[in-house]
């Protein structure tokens, strides 16, 4: 089960998935990201501090959001992954294109 919270901080949309980002939740995340980006919020940070589990479909939703954000002239960044989530990033080499940031506030600084 998952809850996905969205808030806006200084023109940056912060998306917080709370719980397991599995196949069911990935669909919800994909929809959330698409709506945000189509609605003009093209700078997005996904805060993974409360994401307890990530599978390949959750990863697919992040990649999809990353591509859409970039096509719209913005970007998608991820922050504060838990160790379990970081393991998946590393195993799939996604950390090369979606480099995990240490905090949400500074995710767009560099």
């Amino acid at each position, binding site marked *: 089960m998952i809850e996905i919270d969205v808030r806006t901080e200084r023109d940056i949309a912060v998306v917080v998935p709370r719980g397991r980002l*599995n196949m069911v939740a990935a669909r919800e995340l994909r929809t959330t990201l698409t709506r945000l980006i189509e609605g003009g919020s093209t700078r997005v940070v996904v805060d993974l501090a409360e994401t307890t589990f990530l*599978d390949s479909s959750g990863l697919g939703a992040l*990649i999809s959001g990353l591509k859409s954000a970039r096509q719209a002239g913005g970007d998608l960044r991820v922050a504060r992954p838990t160790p379990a989530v970081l393991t998946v990033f590393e195993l799939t080499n996604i950390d090369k294109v979606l480099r995990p940031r240490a905090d949400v506030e500074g995710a767009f600084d560099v």
Partner: protein
Amino acid sequence: MSESTAGDDTLLALHLPAAPEALDTAHDAFEEAWTEHPDVADDVRLRFVMATMEILGNVVEHAYAPDVRADGRRLALDVTRTATGLVGTISDNGQPFALDLSDVAMPGVDAESGRGLALARDVLDGLDYERVEGRNVWTLRCEGR
């Protein structure tokens, strides 16, 4: 929805509908099982659950032709402890798996799908597929490191 026929080495014995909700049901069952088997190493838990969720996801997404009614889609998940780790089987009554597992490769970083089986294979010490009496049977083996 699920039943447990637990022997000493049995960690899980679940019968579930082959539908997306099965992933959360199985995940909850794993979390409960860890409290009864606290000595299973964190690394083994992490890798085994990761692989199980990928195989379950694959079954739910790909094993059934669109015309198979939801109530006819069934899967079973059995997990047993061994001296050194965990062994699990996932079986379903779907159509045969059409790929050769040895051909499965991790796709490029831009891909939005296609990582599941590669990820499962990479975190496990053994992943096998067989077609047995009209069922797909996946065997997952994970050893402590």
